[in-house]
């Protein structure tokens, strides 16, 4: 998954991530636990996360 410039760091993605794969410190960063389930995409209020194409 990729995080774009729209991210403000609200951490909604991190709380809903079922794999504990997102840490947030001013903005979201996605770690190795990510399995590309894309749950975070729907929970981001700013459309800041997209899949690796």
């Amino acid at each position, binding site marked *: 998954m990729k995080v774009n410039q729209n991210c403000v*760091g609200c951490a909604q993605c991190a709380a809903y991530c079922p794999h504990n794969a997102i840490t*947030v410190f001013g*903005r979201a960063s996605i770690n190795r636990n990510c399995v590309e389930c894309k749950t975070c995409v729907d929970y981001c209020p700013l459309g800041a996360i997209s899949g690796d194409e």
Partner: protein
Amino acid sequence: MKAVIIGAGLGGLLSGAKLSKAGYEVEIFERLPFTGGRFTNLEHKGFQLSTGALHMIPHGARGPLASLLCDVGAGVTIIPSEPMSVIRNMAGEDIDFHDFRKEISLTKRVKLGTVLAYSLKFKPKDDISFRDWVMKYFEDEFLLRLADSFCGWSLSLRAADVPAREVLEIIDNMYRYKGPGIPLGGCGAVTDALCDVIRSNGGNIHTSSSVERILVDNGRVSGIFVDGKEVSADIVISNIGHMETTKLYKCSDEDYLAKLGKAKPSRGIKICIASDEALLGHSGALFTPYAQRINGINEVTNADPSLAPAGKHLIMSHQTTLSDNLEQEIALGLDDLKTLFPGKEYEVLMVQSYSGGWPVNRASSGSDTGNRTPVGNLYVVGDGAKGKGGIEVEGVALGVMNAMREIL
């Protein structure tokens, strides 16, 4: 009559509850998978964190939000904060908010009484900021710091960025409605209760439904376009702020657009921490005028232990974001916590920051444009259209009341 509401945040849900109670057929569309917007719970490690606002209602059980909840029949228990609020002074002692005058000289104390009484009655008409107002009459380091701490905690702004008359309206409201309270079950209990009211009045709430267009015919809204179909409506209420709303239809009112350009969203940082022992020991707000960045802190588990796992406390701090270097702003906030709670053990659960398109407030206090739009039956509610002197969600409630007075 049919009302379509865009966005299931607090403003949208309050409007939906009020309109459905008045007999309107209500349909709400929310693009996120859950309701409540920036006023609901966010579960993390067994703690009830929040999507946006802290679990605190600024004017508690007697304020505008509480009275609107009561009016629509939303069952929410609000526990009054006790004490109302506390100030950590320069010496590191916690003093009751009402005793803040003891921190200034006797001369200034006397002057404060008369200046405040006069200014509450005759609010400054010009755009003097609250900081300049404090400077003009008192030139006092403690009062300036307290002004920043208070404006930061309640509006996520520096005192220099809020008009003095807006803060004086807030002080008026504090006398009128009294101090804060904690909603039992957190912010989510409030928005969930409103969803229940809307559904029991026959309304529908759709989540994961993104409205693509507002349909306007001859200066009147006829409906919206969502999920590949048209939904007709007699009125449309938007809870997504004025600016975002204009992106959903062709708005050519230059004066209105220019006014919107001036509304500045406010930004802020919330740090959520967990502790085995109580760090504050009360359910009021702790103002921290001498911290580098943090404006205030609360410990909601003293009012509602269910917001954390058994035996744990949930503490949240709020700070205005003062620079564009967000990492540094957060680091200063974390540093403040170490200084405020020396020798205490706690865990940082989550750091959340808000700005731009997902801010603390879409229109910061004093830059609100009201509920109306250039389209007659299209209204905006929420934190982009608050009422005068309303702190955060109280402002959202006052704004909804204003809009409902026009509609009903």
